[in-house]
């Protein structure tokens, strides 16, 4: 009963601390619950849809003429394979809707069963997909995101048989290729359209140009324990199915690509959440130790009245545990409706609804861990109570709250408030170290996320990471020759000097038996190598760091690259960086590719000195070479698609928002404690003629200084670790060597936001100074 009475009194007396800890724990548990659930929901939803649509463990996209009966049967009869199914598809290599276009291979098929479609506002699924009429098309949401089109809009698809216009009848759930992060797409058209386009393509088909494809769905045998990628490799070595295909994708790979951005963002938020927890521990530690400092006499009195040290500690521990439990419970309750909402942010990228399920087990484990760590911290800090001697405590034997500092900041008449604030800081540094650590963590994250934002919005940064940013893009309908390239450049130069140009093709080849994306460049020197050099001779290739790790390869190693019909040996000349196929790609020169039967250049791009002229240049290219190419201008477009930028901005918003919120709570908690500790000093300053405004400003300046110092530490941490952290997070998209660009706003904005918030919050909290009457001094006597 006595414990309950003391507990009640303690909570009543420290309402501010209690509420703050409840609030902080609420934020932590809420964010962890959201992050863990959304991450799991995204994957579970995709897996459920893949099962529902009866999608194979691997899908290969292969020209019909290459899928011989013998090949199909060798696949079907392979010991690892349960079954294989194939269906016809027509490939389109250019899609347009309004101002937007896409040059990836999109597979047009007849409607297939098992698929669901979205309702009108894309918030739920409909089981039934009404049959399509001629001229109508069902698109996955990834197409809607890439082409910025919706139901009712028109979409034009180019095939070798001609360009066809369709009206979008609806958006369907395509779990394998439906994400906007995957270039290939599967679209449903009416049987009538399919037959008509098929015949038109067949008529125009040549040795090099062929639109007649088969999509082969291959299912692993039940009990096959191989990973999907291992399964694909083994199957290819046994049958050559992927060597013969234009490309293939496994379920695992599709899930990786589809969830790539949700994984990145959730990982960053997870790390941020963990650091927020560290902040909470610091705040809690500060609260307990300053609380003990302030309650020193009372604790001595309790001891003198017969309370054992364990009983007193138990009261304190219970008080903090109660706050932790209440906060966690509140956070979990609030997280429930937010899980669905947060998952919806990724819907345009993933192409399906993430669902609102709660990952009970993971959350329970995380919460348990939070409780254990917090409990341990409180237990260790309250241990100091054991040493309180009742006699010393009651006789006021507790040491002064200030310490003589070696750093003696001078007190000056000019800038009196600032110099007094600095003196206050230097004479009780210990009290502010926690605050400084908190600020540095917050600023580090704010800077890191700003850097990430800079990366996706900066042409030079994106280029440094292996992407080529051009204003005028060309996709070829027929294989061009070198003379055509020269003629094309002449046309473009009429409008603007060319800063940089590239001619390339992207396809899948086998590298030491593994199907890997291959970038063929006519002039590989347009790309930069991070180590060694780009392939200049016909017996060289360059690989990414990820390929090197995955296949245990390094510069100087000899590898076997297989084209469709030929295999050749190559030497690795360098390491480069690319986001293509999330970094699982290698580079070869056109001369080198010719050795394995690859002659075609499918794309070209021009970076112009006068980007505004790109539209006119594209128009001129189309009118001069319309029969062999399709040119378009991307000048003025965002460097990355809106949906990615939106997701990254959402993350930036969350981190900035939480940081400000944390700053507020931390300031409220720490200021309140310091305010109580310094009540006498405030009285003295008032007695010698300081007014409330001056004292509040001094208080706020002090916190401004702490946050400024913390910001500097945060900036240094960012310089040291932001790149490393982003590299480890962005490995999933193939970035292993991020181009960290520090602009002045990158450093200034987070530091200014936090410092101004600390200043303002400290100024507001110190409003209590007005209530301190000099009478407080009389009371002391």
């Amino acid at each position: 009963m006595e414990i309950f009475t003391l507990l009640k009194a303690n909570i009543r007396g420290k309402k501010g601390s209690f509420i703050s800890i409840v609030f902080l724990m609420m934020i932590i548990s809420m964010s962890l619950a959201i992050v863990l659930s959304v991450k799991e929901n995204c994957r579970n939803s995709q897996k459920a849809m893949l099962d529902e649509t009866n999608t194979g463990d691997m899908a290969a996209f292969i020209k019909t003429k290459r899928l011989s009966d013998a090949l199909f049967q060798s696949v079907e009869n392979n010991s690892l394979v349960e079954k294989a199914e194939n269906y016809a598809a027509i490939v389109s290599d250019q899609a347009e809707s309004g101002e937007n276009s896409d040059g990836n291979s999109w597979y047009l098929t007849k409607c297939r069963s098992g698929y669901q479609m979205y309702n009108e506002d894309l918030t739920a699924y409909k089981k039934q997909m009404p049959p399509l009429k001629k001229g109508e098309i069902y698109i996955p949401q990834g197409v809607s995101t890439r082409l910025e089109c919706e139901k009712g809009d028109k979409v034009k698809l180019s095939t070798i048989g001609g360009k066809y216009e369709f009206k979008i009848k609806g958006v369907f759930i395509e779990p394998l290729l439906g994400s906007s992060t995957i270039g290939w797409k599967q679209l449903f058209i009416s049987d009538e359209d399919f037959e008509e386009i098929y015949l038109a393509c067949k008529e125009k088909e040549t040795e090099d140009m062929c639109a007649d494809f088969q999509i082969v769905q291959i299912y692993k045998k039940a009990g096959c324990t191989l990973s999907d990628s291992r399964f694909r490799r083994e199957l290819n070595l046994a049958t050559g199915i992927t060597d013969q295909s234009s490309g293939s994708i496994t379920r695992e790979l599709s899930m990786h690509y589809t969830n790539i951005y949700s994984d990145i963002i959730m990982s960053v938020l997870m790390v941020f959440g963990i650091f927020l927890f560290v902040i909470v521990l610091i705040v809690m530690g500060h609260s307990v130790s300053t609380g003990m400092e302030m309650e020193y006499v009372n604790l001595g009195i309790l001891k003198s009245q017969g309370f054992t040290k364990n009983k007193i500690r138990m009261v304190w521990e219970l008080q903090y545990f109660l706050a932790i439990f209440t906060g966690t419970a509140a956070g979990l309750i609030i997280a429930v409706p937010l899980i669905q909402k947060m998952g919806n942010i990724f819907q345009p990228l993933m192409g399906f609804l993430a669902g609102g399920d709660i990952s009970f087990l993971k959350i329970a484990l995380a919460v348990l861990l939070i409780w254990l760590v917090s409990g341990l911290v409180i237990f260790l800090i309250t241990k100091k109570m054991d040493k309180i001697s009742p006699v010393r405590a009651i006789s006021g034997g507790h040491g002064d709250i200030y310490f003589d500092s070696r750093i003696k900041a001078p007190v000056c008449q000019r800038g009196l408030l600032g110099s007094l604030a600095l003196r206050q800081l230097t004479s009780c540094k210990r009290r502010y170290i926690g605050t400084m650590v908190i600020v540095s963590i917050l600023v580090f994250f704010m800077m890191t996320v700003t850097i990430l934002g800079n990366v996706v919005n900066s042409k030079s940064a994106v280029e440094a990471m292996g992407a080529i940013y051009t204003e005028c893009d060309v996709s070829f309908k027929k294989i061009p020759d070198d003379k055509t390239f020269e003629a094309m450049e002449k046309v473009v130069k009429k409008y603007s000097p060319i800063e940089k140009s590239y001619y390339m093709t992207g396809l899948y080849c086998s590298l030491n038996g593994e199907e890997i994306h291959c970038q063929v460049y006519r002039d590989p020197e347009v790309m930069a190598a991070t180590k060694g050099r780009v392939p200049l001779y016909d017996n060289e290739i360059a690989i990414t760091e990820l390929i090197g790790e995955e296949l245990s390869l390094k510069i100087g190693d000899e590898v076997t690259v297989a084209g469709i019909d030929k295999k050749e040996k190559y030497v690795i000349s360098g390491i480069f960086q690319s986001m293509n196929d999330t970094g699982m790609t290698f580079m070869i020169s056109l001369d080198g590719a010719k050795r394995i039967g690859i002659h075609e250049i499918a794309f070209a791009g021009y970076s112009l000195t006068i980007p505004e002229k790109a539209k006119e240049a594209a128009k001129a290219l189309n009118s001069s070479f319309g029969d062999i190419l399709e040119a378009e201008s991307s000048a003025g477009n965002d460097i990355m698609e809106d949906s990615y930028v939106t997701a990254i901005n959402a993350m930036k918003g969350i981190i900035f928002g939480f940081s400000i919120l944390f700053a507020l709570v931390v300031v409220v908690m720490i200021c309140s404690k310091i305010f109580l500790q310094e009540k006498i000093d405030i009285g003295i300053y008032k007695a010698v003629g300081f007014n409330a405004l001056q004292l509040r400003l001094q208080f706020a300046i002090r916190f401004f200084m702490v946050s400024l110092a913390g910001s500097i530490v945060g900036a240094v941490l960012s310089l040291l670790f932001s790149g490393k952290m982003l590299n480890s997070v962005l490995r999933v998209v193939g970035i292993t060597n991020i181009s960290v660009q520090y602009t002045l706003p990158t450093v200034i904005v987070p530091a200014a936001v936090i410092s101004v918030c600390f200043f303002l919050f400290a100024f507001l909290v110190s409003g209590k100074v007005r209530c301190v009457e000099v009478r407080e001094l009389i009371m002391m006597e």
Partner: protein
Amino acid sequence: MKQVILSANGLCKSFAHNGGQIHVLSHIDLELYEGDFTVVMGASGSGKSTLLYTLSGMDRATAGQVLYSGENIVDAKEKRLASLRHSDFGFIFQQMHLVSNLSLFENIIVPGYLNKEKTAFQVRERAEELLGQMGIAHLKAHLPSQVSGGEQQRCAIARAVIHNPKLLFADEPTGALNKRSTMEVLDLLTGLNQSGQSILMVTHDIRAALRATRLLYLEDGKVVGELPLPEYSPEEEKSREAQVNAWLSAMEW
């Protein structure tokens, strides 16, 4: 004829307590004169400190007026009161109340800096002079916690007079000191008064009361007695003590 420096008319101060009111000061009319060393005495709980703080504007009166240079400071805004504290009034407390993280020298100069009439150089020069006058020049760089109570109080006196206040308020300045320190502090205050400083001090220490040029006796929140005294001189201390003791006995102290 002495000039009135501060006056109180019908000054009342009450505190809310258990739903009722405790009247600590009750309709006090009082005038303080320039150059006087006025000492207020009274039993514990008679309202001495409350009178001092209400007169100095540190605490708000419940009713009545405190007139300083014709201005009723009872109604003065916080900013005006702050300005009075760093220009016209000085304060000495029983517990010294030095800012513990400022050195003795800094404790003295900070309020001096607030008063913009003097340059930083002048303030520092004056502080050095006061430190010498108070006999603590060698301790100027020490923190309050590193010096004795008497030395702290001498520093507090220097702080209180750094801006040459018109009126110095002292609340039992010797209450926390030993006999030697008490005498040193009283000598300093006497010296200040004899050089023209007006002082209002509350105390229950007869040794302190002997230094007064005017003694007031407070009982139940009212001034019930007054004893004018000549300027203090150590030679006459014995006779002065007898006179004050007799007066205090008459006041039933």
